[in-house]
C-alpha cells in the first residue's frame, strides 16, 4: 500500500513544521524580549551598562508587582481596573501614617507607628480593598469590569480626600518619633541590586509556586476554564475569587509602598492608568483574557518587554507620542499571535491524539 504511507510521511512532515512554528510561538515573548534588547543595544550606546539596566529593571518592578497580582484575576476570566488607584491610595495611607500618625482625638494624642507596622498595615488595607472587590463581584454578581471601575473611582477619590489633593512629603520620618527608614525600601540595596528588584523576583517565585503547586492555583485555572464544571467539581468558586482579588489588591499595595518610598513622597494621582500597563504585560505574557490559560513567567517577561520598550524608546529619543503608538501595536500583534498559537496548539493536540 503506497498511499497511506505517503500520506503518513506527508502529515508527519507537516506536523514537524507546525511543531516548530508552535515552539516559536510559545517562546514568542522570550524571542520578542531578545529582539528588543538586541535592537536597543545596537541603537542606543551604553544600553547594556549595568547602571542603566538597573534603573530600567527598577521601573519594570513597579509594573511587575501589579501585573503579577492581576494575573490570577485574569486567569479566572476577570479583570481588576482598580489596582492603579489602590497603588495611589496605599502610598497615601503610608504617607499619612508616617507624617500625621494615627490621631486619637479623645486622648489628644497621635500615635506614630514604626515602619515595621506601617508596611503590614498598608498591605492589609490593599488586600481588604481587593477583598471588597471580590465580595461585590461574587455576592452581588457585579461584572468584574464594572465593579472594579467603580472601586477605581472610589479609591482614587479617597486618595485625593486624604490630603485634599496635596502631596505628602518628607516620608523619611522623624528620629524622635522612631518612624524612620521608610525610604530604605526604595533606595536600599542587597548585593548591589535595589530591594525592589529582589522583591519582584521573590513575588514572581511565590505567585508561580501558588499557581503551579497548590490546590488554590489549580482552582484558579479551573474557574477560568469552566466555572460551571468547577462548581460541580467541588471548587469553592466564590471563596477562590475573593482571594484572587485580595491578592491583586495586596500586590498593588506593595507597589504603592515601593513607589512612595522611592520618591520619599506620596502623591494621590500616582498610578493613574498603571492598570493598563499591567494588563498589557499579562496579555503579552500569553495569559488569555477569556480565562483558563496563562503563566506567571509569561507575565514577568511581558512586564520586561513593556518596560524595556518604554525606556529604550526614551533613550533613543523617540517622542512620547510615538512611544504610545509602538506600545499599542506591540500589544495588538501579541494578541493576534496568541490567537494563532491557540489554533495551532489545538490542531497539534488533535493530530497527536489520532
Amino acid at each position: 500500500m503506497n498511499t497511506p504511507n505517503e500520506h503518513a510521511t506527508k502529515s508527519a512532515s507537516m506536523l514537524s513544521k507546525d511543531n516548530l512554528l508552535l515552539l516559536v510561538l510559545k517562546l514568542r515573548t522570550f524571542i520578542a524580549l531578545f529582539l528588543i534588547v538586541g535592537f536597543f543595544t545596537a541603537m542606543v550606546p551604553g544600553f547594556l551598562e549595568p547602571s542603566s539596566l538597573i534603573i530600567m529593571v527598577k521601573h519594570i518592578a513597579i509594573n511587575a508587582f501589579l501585573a503579577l497580582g492581576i494575573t490570577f484575576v485574569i486567569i479566572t476570566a476577570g479583570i481588576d481596573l482598580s489596582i492603579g488607584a489602590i497603588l495611589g491610595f496605599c502610598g497615601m495611607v503610608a504617607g499619612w501614617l508616617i507624617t500625621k500618625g494615627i490621631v486619637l482625638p479623645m486622648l489628644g494624642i497621635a500615635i506614630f507607628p514604626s515602619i515595621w507596622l506601617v508596611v503590614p498595615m498598608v498591605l492589609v488595607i490593599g488586600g481588604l480593598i481587593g477583598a471588597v472587590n471580590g465580595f461585590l463581584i461574587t455576592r452581588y454578581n457585579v461584572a468584574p469590569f464594572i465593579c472594579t471601575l467603580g472601586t477605581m473611582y472610589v479609591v482614587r477619590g479617597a486618595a485625593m480626600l486624604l490630603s485634599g489633593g496635596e502631596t505628602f512629603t518628607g516620608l523619611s520620618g522623624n528620629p524622635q518619633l522612631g518612624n524612620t527608614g521608610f525610604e530604605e525600601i526604595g533606595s536600599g540595596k542587597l548585593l548591589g541590586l535595589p530591594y525592589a528588584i529582589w522583591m519582584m523576583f521573590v513575588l514572581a517565585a511565590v505567585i508561580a509556586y501558588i499557581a503551579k503547586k497548590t490546590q488554590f492555583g489549580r482552582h484558579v485555572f479551573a474557574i477560568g476554564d469552566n466555572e460551571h464544571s468547577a462548581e460541580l467539581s467541588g471548587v469553592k468558586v466564590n471563596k477562590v475569587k475573593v482571594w484572587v482579588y485580595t491578592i491583586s489588591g495586596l500586590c498593588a499595595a506593595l507597589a504603592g509602598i515601593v513607589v512612595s518610598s522611592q520618591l520619599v513622597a506620596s502623591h494621590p494621582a500616582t498610578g493613574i492608568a498603571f492598570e493598563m500597563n499591567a494588563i498589557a504585560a499579562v496579555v503579552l505574557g500569553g495569559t488569555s483574557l477569556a480565562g483558563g490559560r496563562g503563566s506567571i513567567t509569561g507575565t514577568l517577561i511581558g512586564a520586561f518587554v513593556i518596560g524595556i520598550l518604554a525606556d529604550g524608546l526614551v533613550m533613543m529619543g523617540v517622542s512620547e507620542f510615538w512611544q504610545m503608538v509602538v506600545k499599542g501595536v506591540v500589544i495588538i500583534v501579541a494578541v493576534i499571535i496568541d490567537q494563532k498559537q491557540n489554533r495551532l496548539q489545538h490542531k497539534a493536540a488533535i493530530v497527536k491524539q489520532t
Partner: protein
Amino acid sequence: MADAQTDIVMRAEGISMIYPGTVALNAVDYRVHRGKVNVIIGENGAGKSTLMKILAGVQQPSSGRIFLNEAPVTFSSTRDAASHGVGMVHQELNLFGNLSVAENIFLGREKQRGLMPLDTTEQHRITRELMARLNQAIEPSELLANLKVGQQQLIEIAKALADQADVLILDEPTSALSKTEVELLFEVIRDLTAQGVSIIYISHRLEELMAIGDHITILRDGNLQSEALIKDIDVPWIVREMLGNDPVSDFLPAERTFGDPVLEVRDLTLVSPTGLTLVDDVSFDVKAGEIVGIYGLMGAGRTELMECLLGLQRYVGDITLSGTAVNEATSTSERIQRGMCLVPEDRKKNGIFPVSSVSNNMTISSLWRRLKHRFTIDETAEAQAVETAIKGLSIKVSSPEIEIRALSGGNQQKVVIGRTLLTDPKMLLLDEPTRGIDIGAKGDVFNMMVSLSQKGIGVLFSTSDLKEIMAVSDRILVMSGGKLTANVSRHDATESALVSASAQGL
C-alpha cells in the same frame, strides 16, 4: 371526515442519510397526511430528528426525493423550505426575551424597505391576525419575556405560520410545558388542522400522542418500522414496535449482593424560583453495590434531583450518606469529600475544562487527597493516580498533558468519570452518562459501572433510553413531572409499565 378524502401533502421517498461511520436513515419512505396530526416516534437515535431536519431543509439527504403536493422539491435551506410552506418549531425556543412579540415574529424578515423606518403598523397588524388564528389575546407590542413558556411556544408556531406554513413540524413541543399549557397547545393544534394545516408531531410522551395524533409513524434504527392510524392501536403496541423484540443486552452478572444503604433520600422537594415544583417529594435508597437507574423524559426532574443530592440547589428534605446526615448547608466540596460525586449530563457545559490538560481535568476534584504538608500538590502521586485511571478506564490519550478538547466525546466522558473515581466515592451519580458518545464507549461506561458496584460503590444513573435502563440497573426508578412514579426491581419491570409510569400525571 372519511379517510378516503385525506390525501398526502408531503411525501419523502427513499430518504437516506449517511454520516461517516453510521447510517442515520436507511431508505425511509414517509407520508404526511393533509390537515392531520402526523405523529412520529422512535427511540433516541432512531432517526426522527434527522428525518425532520431533512424535511425542514436544515440538512440535505444523502439520497432520496421529497415531493410537495406531488411536485418534486429540494430544500437547500430552512428559508427555502419555509418559502415552500414547510416550517419547523424546534424543541429549544429560539426567541429573544428583550424583543416584543411582533419583533420576534418578524426577526430577520422585517417589514422595511431601503432606508425607511420599520413598518411597525403592518407588523403589528399581521401579528394580531396570527394571534387571532391561535386564539390568543397577546398584544403584539408585549415583551416576549413577559409571556409564559406555553405562550412562547405559540409564538414560535406563529413565526412558522407567518411564513404561510402549510406543513408544520413540532419537535417535542410539550417538553417544557405544564399540563394546562399542553391542553392549550392541543386546542391550537386542532384549530390549525381544521384550517388545513398539516402537523408533524414528534414526542416521547405516548399518552399525548394518543390524545392528539391521527396517524402514527414509528422509526427504528433508521428504518421505517410501521405506520398506522392512532385509533387502531394502543400504547403497548407502540412500545413493541419502537423497541422491537431483540433481547436486551445484559451487563449485570447473575448473582448480585448488596450491602447497607449508602444513600437515603427522604421527602426531597425542590421548588424553582419561578414557583415550579421540579422535584416533588422524592424518597428512595441506594444500597452499597447497587446500581439504580432513573428513567424519565426530558424535564422529568432527573437532573434537578441529582443537583439537589450534590448540594447545587436549595432543596428541602433529608439526605443521608453512609449513615450520616447531609444537611442542606453542606457545601458541594464537602459532599464530594464525604464520598458523593456527580458526572454531569452536559459534558461541554458542566463537565470538562476544555483548555486544561487531561491530567488537570482528572484531578481537580481530588487535589485534597494528595497534598504534601497539607499545602503542596504531590505531583508524583498525582501522575501515578492519573496513569492508573487512564489505564483502568482504557482512555485513549497520547499523553496526560494534552488538552482535553482534543479528545473524542467518549474519551472526554471517561476522563470526567475518572475525575469522580479519583475522589474515591461511596456514591456515584451519573446524569445521562451515555449522551453523545459512541456505542463502544457506552459499553465501556456500563462495564465500568458494574465493576464499581462490585467494589461496593452505590451507583445512581439516569437515562431516557429504555434499553440502557434495562441493561444495567438492579433497580429502576421512574420520574415524571418531578414525582417518583415507580420504584421496581429490574426483574419485575416491564418496558410498557416503565413507559406509562414515565408519562403519569402529564
